[in-house]
């Protein structure tokens, strides 16, 4: 859950953002303690809203990306922990290995994307909104197409 503290980083530049981040963190923690999945989800969403608010303020891009990675990892870990406890009723060293692997993978994907996004944004001299939107829109279409076509042949050799 320490990764969730990263969500406070962008709030340093935008104190208004600290409110939803704090509320979201409290809700996520209470959801984790009580075993309420919905509270965890809403808590993480609240923390993310704080990041969006910070972005609309004066927060720097690295802080926003750091906060987003922290929020995603915090949500993923809390969510997985609750589901495991509900299904297994106890946590063993083997279970902890599963949790660490999940958190590490999610954090890795999010961090790598964040770093690449920052580098690309930094190297772009001019960032016309429309161009970026079109790029993102294109990415979205590709993702949806992947899902709907069920391209199992392209991604052969995955775990089951």
């Amino acid at each position: 859950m320490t990764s969730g503290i990263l969500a406070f980083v962008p709030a340093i530049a935008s104190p208004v953002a600290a409110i939803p981040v704090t509320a979201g963190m409290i809700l996520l923690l209470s959801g984790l303690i009580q075993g309420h999945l919905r509270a965890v989800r809403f808590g993480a969403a609240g923390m993310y809203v704080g990041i969006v608010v910070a972005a609309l303020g004066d927060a720097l891009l690295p802080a926003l990306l750091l906060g987003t990675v922290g929020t995603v990892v915090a949500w993923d870990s809390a969510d997985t922990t609750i589901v495991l406890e509900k299904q297994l009723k106890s946590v063993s060293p083997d279970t902890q290995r599963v949790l660490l692997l999940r958190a590490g993978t999610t954090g890795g994907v999010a961090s790598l994307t964040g770093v690449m996004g920052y580098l690309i944004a930094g190297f772009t001299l001019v960032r016309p909104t429309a161009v970026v939107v079109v790029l993102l829109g294109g990415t979205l279409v590709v993702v949806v197409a992947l899902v709907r076509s069920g391209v199992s042949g392209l991604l052969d050799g995955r775990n089951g």
Partner: protein
Amino acid sequence: MPRLVAGLTTSTIVVAVLGLVAFLLGFVRLQRRAHTNRVLEMPQPERTTALTVPGSGFDRKLRELAPETRDRVKSAAVALLSQNVGSDDSAVRQRIERGTWTEDEEAVAFLSSKGQRRFRGVRSWLGGDPTVVHEARAAVSALSRIQEAKSGNRDGGDPTSVRSRSGAPNVESGGGGEDAGRGQPARLAADNGKVPGAPQPGSSVDRMTGRWYGVGVLTLFTIAVAVISREPDLLVVATIGLALSAYAAYGRAGSAVSKPVVVGRQLETERPVRGESVEVTVTVRNKSDRFLPNVRVVDGVPAQLVVTEGSPRCSGTLRPDGTLEYSYTLIAEYGGYEFDSPVAVLYDITGERERILRPAGDDTVVVCRPPPEKSDDLSGRSRTTGYIGQITSDEGGSGIEFHAIRNYRSGDPLARIDWKRLARTGELTTIQFRQDRMVKVVLIVDVRTEAYCVPGATERDAISRCVEAADILAHTLLTMDNRVGVTALPMDSCWVAPGSGNDHRQRIREILTRDPPFTDFPATDQCIMSVELSRFRQRLPADAQVVLLSPLTDDYALEFVQRLETTGVPTTVISPDPTTDGTAGRDLAELERRNRLVQLRQGHIPSYDWAPREALTVALANVSGGGGR
């Protein structure tokens, strides 16, 4: 760029439209997802047959603010206060209305005619119990204190009895889904251990969890906010969400391996003694050439066998050809039990794809046919059949237990003359001993649904304890050359007339450990009082007495016994205690059960309160406090 509308550039329009589309997409997906539950419910092998903790239904209704909860507590209060105060019902009800029956204000508030509060307080909205729950608990606690003050020692006067107090936190009492998480009593499964949508043994089922759905929705909202507010940094942030969505798509698009795991099981012993701990070791092996990042296994524990140590569940990662081993402990019960095939669930690295497997079982069976413990302290009601047996009656004669002294009569055996009295006082007297007589007893085991309850997930259920007691009593009485019969409540077709001898003893043993009423419970047939009494009276020998084995969790068993007594059938009750404390409902169930025991004793019906984990001999020996003589 040419202007399409005055004051707006084309790029602005494109951007605004894209933002609106993204916003709407996110909103629609959120609506679709709002009411789905993607968490797979695993089987509850610790107790695979529907089972309740007494009072769990009351707790559920209390949280729903059902008005009948107040009526039930009020009825228990009237019954208790009428017993203790000696007043009639109307006077007791007036005391309750005026609030003079206790000094506890919360208890008074709950039972007052103003009724329960019809709204939930802030505490309730924040996840705590409504105020009415606290008031109900206070009312029941106040009644329990009154009952304790009247009856003395709460454990029935037996210092050796061990009662399980608040030691069963992990028993489910209603509710499900997210409310069944930590800190909440969990629900005992009524699904016979089956996972919804689970495959048959030897096959598998794939499904998608959709756990990254929310990330996709938030990403779309982020894009919408970014384009509307023209904040490019948010678009960069949104790429993280897009990447994770692609990551989830990667998981969904993966292909599964057929039969990737094999689950093996080894028992410490396959023929244990009843009550013996049996360690079960489960081994999960990865037969595929892929790394399995998330494997969850739940073993198919036989119904009615209690897991007392460890857990039949396990989770971990498995390298190719790697193994995962874990163990848990069961308590053996009478009968033969076959393990069900385990449930294995495999997840990919993203957690998006879920594969539910039922590896074919290896037909593991545990059989328990133990010799029973003897009950040397067993004694039935003082009634004989006119035959000589080994139960001492209230008549004097030849025997081994001292009964009385009388004047010497010509012909009395020299060995029975009281020589010490002769030497001391000069009087010639004869010692009389209690005369042994044979009894006819019919043991009735209550196997109704209301009797199928348990104080905790790791405790034995009440019906199993009743069957155990029937086996012990039958063996002991038959060893003493008495005549014993067995039946169930409801009787159905199960009736063994009182008999004697080794063959009869073996027959009763076979029936108690193999026949459906005593192994496949609870009975689902409706149990109508008049019908059951009629059936029973038709078959019961005229000179027989009855021992009812029932947890007394409802008034049916109480009324059944009272009616038998009024028809002249001497009845004794042995009642395993299935109650516990910790909530208003559980406390109330305990209070009501004690009220029933008091009513039986006030009607001069011997009643033995048998605490959990207490030997039957101890319960029967507890005559002064918990017994009914």
